[in-house]
Every structure is written in C-alpha cells, then in structure tokens.
C-alpha cells in the first residue's frame, strides 16, 4: 500500500517537472522578451532575468521613434470594423440557412463549404487587383473589406441558430410576428455565445494579420501594429530594446483578450473537429 502511494507521488512529481519544463519552453521566450524590454543598451543580451536597473527607456524610445498610438489606432480601426462587419453580415446570412426553406439552399451551403477548403492566399492577386481597380489601395478600407466576412463565422452561427428551440420560432410565426422581428427578438439573443466566439476568433486573426496590410498600404503611417513591427524589425535591427518594447506592446492586448475569453475560445477550437 505504502509502496503504491510512493509510486503515485513519484509519477505526480515527474508530471509536474515535465509540465514546468514545457511551459518554460513555450512561455519562456515571452517572459525573456518582457524582461529584455526593461533592460538598457549595454546589458541587453545579459542572461540575468531580473535586471538590477530596470528602465522604461525602451518604451519611451519606441513611442518617440514610431508613432505607436497611431499604429494602435489603425489596428483598432481594422480589427473592430472587421468584427462588426463579420458579426452582422454573418448573423444575417446564417439565419435563413438554419431556419428557412428556400430555393438554392443546398447549392449555397455547398459553395460556402467548398470555399473553406481553399487557402486564402490563392485569391490574393485578384483581391489586390480588385482593390486597386476600385481605388482603395493605400486605404484602411482596402485592408478591412477582403476577408472581413468569414465563411467560418457563417457556418458557426448557422450551427448555433439550429440550437435555438424550434417551438419558439413556430409560436412567434403563429402570432404573426415578422421574420425580421423573430430574428431580432428570439434568434439573436439565442446565438450570443457563438457571437462571442466569432468576436474572439476575428480579434485574434485581425490583430495579428500583417501581410495583407503590407500589400495594400504603401504609406507606413497607415500600418497596423503587427505590420509596423515587422517593418521596425527590418529597418532598426540594432535598436533591439525598442523592438522588444514594441513586441511586448503588440502582444499584451491579445493575451488579455485570450485570458478573458479562454473557456469559450477553447471550446470552439475543440468543437471544430466534430463540426
């Protein structure tokens, strides 16, 4: 009996050691970046984790060198407008796909699903030509529009509409409620959990996006944060402290959003395999 308990303890200790090691490998580089962003020029490559003389110089420097508030503003404009477009348009589009009978329903579902298999990069050239033809190059609108409505969101919300009890809809229809009213008063509240999932997914993907903005925007002042960061990395390689501070600034919001919505997000990720 005692032997068995001992063996169990040992396996628990081993598991913790493994977990600590892997967590260090995964999160360690971020912590190191954080600590580096408070170091000064001379000891920037030093191995010690806690520097004796922490300084905010890198943060002040990166704000002076790059117009950080501007980049944050650009990122927010891109991220929030994409989320708004995606949530409203997808929620509208998914409703008939889940709750109405109409001609062409199967065809539309088929087309939507088949576009999910094709990687977004395939359409990049033509998207560039479209944006250029409607004179939206070098504008934030040109960054926002392509890829704002995601087929994934439509499918996710359709799934969610299907979960709203049918009796509620039927009862409202019998009472003579209009389709738009049913949507607004019964369906929308019913799909709120999935809407929040769409918001988190969009937030993460749009906040981190950097390539499409490079292609559309010629003026670096219009860059979002991630794009500006890759630009900073290319042109001020020697200002390592600044880059470290800039990287920390770009990561913090996304980590906060993730920590707040973690449960919901992970459930959606795991659900994707079955769905």
């Amino acid at each position: 009996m005692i032997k068995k308990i001992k063996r169990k303890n040992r396996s628990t200790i081993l598991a913790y050691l493994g977990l600590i090691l892997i967590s260090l490998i995964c999160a360690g580089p971020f912590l190191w970046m954080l600590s580096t962003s408070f170091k000064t020029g001379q000891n920037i490559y030093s191995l010690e984790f806690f520097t004796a003389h922490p300084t905010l110089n890198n943060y002040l420097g990166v704000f002076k060198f790059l117009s950080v508030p501007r980049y944050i503003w650009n990122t927010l404009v891109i991220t929030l407008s994409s989320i708004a477009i995606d949530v409203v348009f997808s929620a509208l589009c998914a409703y008939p796909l889940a709750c109405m009978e109409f001609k062409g329903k199967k065809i539309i579902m088929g087309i939507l699903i088949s576009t999910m298999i094709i990687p977004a990069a395939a359409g990049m050239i033509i998207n560039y030509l479209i944006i250029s033809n409607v004179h939206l190059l070098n504008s934030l609108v040109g960054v926002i529009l392509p890829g704002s409505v995601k087929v994934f969101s439509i499918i996710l919300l359709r799934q969610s509409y299907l979960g709203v009890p049918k009796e509620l809809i039927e009862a409202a229809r019998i009472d003579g409620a209009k389709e738009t009213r049913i949507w607004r008063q019964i369906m929308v509240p019913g799909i709120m959990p999935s809407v929040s999932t769409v918001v988190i997914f969009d937030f993460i993907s749009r906040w981190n996006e950097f390539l499409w903005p490079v292609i559309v925007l010629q003026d670096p002042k219009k860059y979002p944060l991630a794009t500006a960061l890759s630009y900073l990395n290319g042109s001020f390689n020697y200002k390592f402290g600044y880059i470290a501070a800039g990287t920390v600034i770009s990561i913090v919001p996304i980590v906060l959003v993730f920590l707040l919505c973690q449960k919901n997000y992970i459930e959606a990720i795991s659900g994707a395999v079955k769905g």
Partner: protein
Amino acid sequence: MKVKTRQTIKAYMFMAPALFMIVVFVLVPIIGSLPLMFYDYSVLGKTKFIGMDNFKRAFSDPEFRISIINSILFVAVVPVLQILSILLALLVNRKLKGISIFRTLIYIPVITSMVAVSIIWGFLFDPSGLINTALQDMGLISNPLGFLSSGKTAMICIMFITIWQGLGYYMMLYLAGLQSVPKELEEAAIVDGVNKLQGFIKIKLPLLKPYIWFCTLNSVISAVGVFDVVYVLTKGGPYNATLVINYYSYTKAFTDFEFGYSAAIGAVQAVITSVLSIFVFLYGKKGGGMTYSD
C-alpha cells in the same frame, strides 16, 4: 405569390450583404486566378495569352525547383508536431492541481502573431543572442553560431519555430479527443489489469483517430503553405536555403509583379497540397478515421 417564393425572397434579402462580400472577395478571386496562370500579366504593358509558357518556365527555373524541394522537406514537421502534441495532450489530461495554468502557458504561442514570435526567436538565435551566450557560458562552443545565417541550420530553426508555435493548438485538439474517451472504458481497462501503455495503444489511440486525421490534414496544408516565419526571419535566405514555394510565389507576385507566373506557381502548390491531403484522407479512411468526423 406562393409562400415558398415569398420565403425565398426573404431568405436572399437576409443573405445578400454577406453573399455579396463572399462573391466579390472570395469566389471571384479564386476563380479569377485560374485563367491568370496562362497569361503573361503585366501591370504596365499589354497582357497576353501565353498558354503553358508559365509552367514551362517554372520547370526550368532552378529557384522554383529549390522552393519545391524545401517545401516538401518542410512537411517533415508534420509527424514530429503531431506526435509531440499527442504526448503533451496525455500529460495535460492528468488531473493535477493548477493544470489549467500550464495549458494556458503552452497555448500562448498560438495566439501571438507570427511577427512577434519570429522577432523573439530571431533574437534568441542571434549570434549574440541568448542561446549562443548560454552555450558559450557553459563552454560548449567557443565561437557563436549563426543559426539563421547558415544554410545548414536556418531551415531547422524555421521548422523548430513552426513546431513550437503549433504545439499548443494541436495539444488542445487532442485533449478534447482524450476527454471524449468514455470514463467507463478506462475504468474497465484498469479493472482488467491493462497497463498504461497498452491502455493507450488499445483504447485511446483508436478513439483519437478522427482527431489525428483532422490535425494531420490541417498540419500538412499549413506546412506546404508556410510563409510568415520565412518572411519575417530569413526572406528565403541564406542562399535560398529557406526558399519555400509559398514565399517564392509571393515574391513573384508582389516584388516582381509577375502575376501570371506567380499564379502558375500557386497552382503547383495547390496540386502538391491536394496530393498530400488525398494521401492523408485515404489513410484516414482506411484506418476508420472518418467515422465520426462527418
């Protein structure tokens, strides 16, 4: 008007805004890039039909050949990533205090941008960076190693970063799979005196099959399409050592503005992806992986 017709009109009014966006920015771009590969598309001069010339050019283009070889080599990350993720999922599936904190820490690389991740690893791999300093302090090396500037190691570093960033994502998926294993099954196995390894191979692995199939497929598609790390860290160098097909196709389009040639390269990439996907798909079907994923 018939009820059904009225319903149909209403339905399309609901869908119109989203469908418009998807047609313009998803469908037209995908379909439109098909004819592009048979043209010599020029931004300034005249665009002309050149038939298969873009493909003929590709197969005598040494850089294109290098990019294909590199991309296929890069697919080697898939089995490594999947096996490590399954092992990790087994570890975080244990009921231990504070396990969710560990799960979150392992997941952080997944949600951060590839730009930030690449910058961090760029500095860790730097000749005067943390890894070199640590190795020198331990006396393992006398001169700093140029991990990213040497053709021999640059590709390995890119692969390492890809695996490091993907671990958390696939771990979460496999964890969901492990948690769907019925408790009774595990208990019955314990009662029958099955040891842990047998229990894993005989009970958990078969139930994980749909997850393995799904994750491998995803992983193959993103491995053939690897782009961001290469763009931020190596730009395909040194001496084309990390030139992968997606990056080559990008440079042809947006630095050389040879849209037609780029589309042809993209088509070859799509073919490679499809062939590998079909391979995984058939394997998954044979192993019963498709049973409850559809």
